[in-house]
């Protein structure tokens, strides 16, 4: 009698043919191009623009530019600050929305999600308009004697931070809301019943309860932030240049692709480290952190 097992030919054929289109596409147009970044870092630049022939270490050595460490550090630092403030705002917001009764909740959720559907560039531009030297906000602040007429609201790191937080917030609210929705709020009542203050209940019961959502939110904010390029370009100045700007400059202004490649490998490294933290920090379903030095619970 033919054994219809998990490993029947029919089943393997089905599995393979369903996975084939996406795997093929992503291998050719995602995996290989990513590997190419590493490869091109070892190629010289063509003086006329583009990639030269042959292989060399020169490109990698050129990374010793004294300006770079500062820029890399700034990129990481700004991303961290952005992540911190974004989460600091998103956590209470997600908490609040999850506790609203379902009827009104949909409306509020909609209000928070709508900016996500509007054009990314438009939102950045909207802030450029608001912070404009001759704009309304500037006039109002000068009028209130909060700043002098010469202060620029635009083209500075603070502006970059503000707009980054503005654009990243919906991405933080979503996973935090998803986690908050699944959270059993009677746990907080139990904590209060046992004598905890509201603050302690929040940090000792709620935060661990939404831990996976928190890590997801961190990731979803931090990683796009370190790759930020448009925001520093539009509202930032020369002292708020980030790694993304340098890469773009090398490509579009200097046509030096190998150099941009090499810089991108740094970006990839800067990205992998938080990714590793994320994977290690994720709680399994039982609620204990897999390999943790932290003593939660």
């Amino acid at each position, binding site marked *: 009698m033919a054994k219809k097992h998990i490993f029947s030919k029919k089943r393997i054929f*089905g*599995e393979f043919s*369903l*996975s084939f289109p*996406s*795997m093929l*596409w*992503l291998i050719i*147009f*995602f995996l*290989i*191009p*990513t590997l*190419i970044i590493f490869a091109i870092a070892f190629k010289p630049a063509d003086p006329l623009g583009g990639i030269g022939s042959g292989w060399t270490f020169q490109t990698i050595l050129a990374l010793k530019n004294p300006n770079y460490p500062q820029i890399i550090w700034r990129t990481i630092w700004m991303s961290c600050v952005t992540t911190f403030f974004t989460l600091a*705002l998103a956590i*209470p*917001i997600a*908490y*609040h*929305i999850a*506790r609203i009764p379902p009827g009104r909740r949909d409306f509020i959720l*909609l209000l*928070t999600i*709508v*900016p996500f*559907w*509007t*054009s*990314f*560039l*438009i939102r950045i*531009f*909207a802030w*450029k*308009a*608001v912070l*404009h030297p*001759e*704009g*309304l906000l500037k*006039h109002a602040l000068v009028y209130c004697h909060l700043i002098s007429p010469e202060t620029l609201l635009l083209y500075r790191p603070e502006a970059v931070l503000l707009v980054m937080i503005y654009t990243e*917030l919906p991405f933080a609210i979503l996973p935090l809301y998803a986690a908050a929705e699944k959270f059993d709020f009677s746990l907080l009542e139990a904590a*209060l019943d046992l004598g905890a203050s*509201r603050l302690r209940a929040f940090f000792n019961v709620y935060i661990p309860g939404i831990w996976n959502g928190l890590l997801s939110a961190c990731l*979803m904010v931090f*990683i796009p932030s*370190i*790759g*930020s390029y*448009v925001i520093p370009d*539009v509202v930032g100045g020369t002292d708020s240049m980030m790694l*993304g700007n340098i*890469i*773009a400059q090398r*490509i579009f202004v200097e046509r030096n*692709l190998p150099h*941009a490649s090499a810089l*991108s490998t740094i*970006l*990839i490294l800067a990205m992998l480290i938080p990714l590793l933290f994320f994977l290690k920090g994720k709680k399994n379903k039982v609620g204990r952190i897999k390999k943790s030095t932290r003593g939660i619970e």
Partner: protein
Amino acid sequence: MIKKSKIPGIITWLVLLFFYLPIILLVVNSFNLSRTGGSWDGFTLKWYAKLWNAKYVWTALKNTLFVAFFATIISTIIGTTAAFALHLYKGKFQKTHYCLIYTPLVIPEILLGISLLLFFVSVKIDLGFTTMIIAHVTFCVSYVTMAVLSRLQDFDMTILEASRDLGANTWQSTTHILLPMVMPGMLAGALLAMTLSVDDFVISFFVAGPGSTTLPIQIYSMIKRGSMPLINALSTLLLSVTFLMILVFQILTKHKKKQSVLNVE
């Protein structure tokens, strides 16, 4: 009843205000005679008139829709098959498959952009509509897969068994049962792909060739050039389209919900 802290609520409303103020300001200024919006100089529609005459904007829009159309179709097909593979089969192969699909979602766009640029340059493909469509499909596939996958997870597979039990062969089961059930998920995925494609700037910027300027790229160069009022007008138009679409979508889903609520005993 334990007294709830008001702080999260206050933060929520402040942040929502923070969300909408710049946008509202933008819309208001599109009707403002003043170029910089520093003061209200009077109501005007001249910026919209200027926009109407800016041919380069409308060409860019046409390009955007062209790319979005093809990118949506291709990525929806690929994404849906991937979602089925991930849902129906478990094991090491699918785990690898899942990693491959998940990774583009967590990578900064600039990396995707530069990797594709380098790829096209190395393989000596000219930058243009083809490269643009390929790039868009690449980043949309993952989103479509996730959207369809989450719908599939609510899907009760025994329904397919029931269909075979009642005499349907594989083709009949697929066309009468499977496709109609999966269609809402596919549409959601397609909608997501289209939105992402229309709105994409960074990746498009890297792989665009001369003559394949999309609307976001056009807006970016307008921002750099400083034609602020025009951008105000254009933004207002785009925002209205988005809001309208969301409104229509809400009305449609609310209508469906009301119907099912009324009919349950």
